[in-house]
């Protein structure tokens, strides 16, 4: 195997990615960067699924496929909302997005 590392090293990688994603979600004010942060959190979860799948059985890998599909859908819907808001209001500031409530 190319990457010789035990499960704790991979979990450390996953937690580091999760920490960077949480930092981005809490501190950024740009919607696209917040979307990057969400994708990082999802990728950290995927890494966990892959690691435990390699250790135990193949089901975690299959769930990682589903997660990747749902994350792509989430990114597409999120970016569509961002573009619609930009066309309507000329700016996209997350704290001011209140118009989806009815």
């Amino acid at each position: 195997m190319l990457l010789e590392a035990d499960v704790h090293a991979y979990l450390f990688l996953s937690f580091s990615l999760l920490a960077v994603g949480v930092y981005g979600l809490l501190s950024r004010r740009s919607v696209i960067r917040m979307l990057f942060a969400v994708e990082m959190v999802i990728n950290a979860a995927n890494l966990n699924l892959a690691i435990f799948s390699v250790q135990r059985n193949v089901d975690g890998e299959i769930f990682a496929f589903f997660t990747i599909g749902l994350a792509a859908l989430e990114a597409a819907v999120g970016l569509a909302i961002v573009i619609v808001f930009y066309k309507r209001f000329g700016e996209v500031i997350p704290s001011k997005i209140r118009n989806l409530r009815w």
Partner: protein
Amino acid sequence: MGNVYFWIIYAIIIGSAIIALEATSLLWAAVSFVVLLSEIALVYFGLNMPVLGGVQLAIYAGGVTILVLFAIMMIGESYKKPGGKAVRAIVLSLILLILGTLFSFLSAIDTLPFKAYSTAFLGTVFVEKYSFFTIVLGFIVSALLYMANAIITKKREAK
């Protein structure tokens, strides 16, 4: 722990993740995001998961990044400096990292040997155990798209 290749990939992943959040140009942030996703695909390849790595490259590093690039080209770049929340966010994420790593070492996660699955076995399990789940997932996606369409239609009527 890991060998030197693992830690090189670790440094590239975390470095590109930080650059994707901190770069002043959104275009460079997107490029850094592509590097991050490609390196994660490399981790999957290293774990003997070529199908998952290929899907990661095709859907994430290909599809999602192209969507983000189109969005950046349409709305332009607007960088806003983080406010006073940045310090609190760094502290919280560091606490999360330390606690998570500590619990992973303290917990009873055994160090079983890593296995390698063939693509044929992966496909067999997928079809035999999760084909129904795929149909449910398809219905969820359809419901989401229908709801999005309903929201847009309602807004148009209100206008």
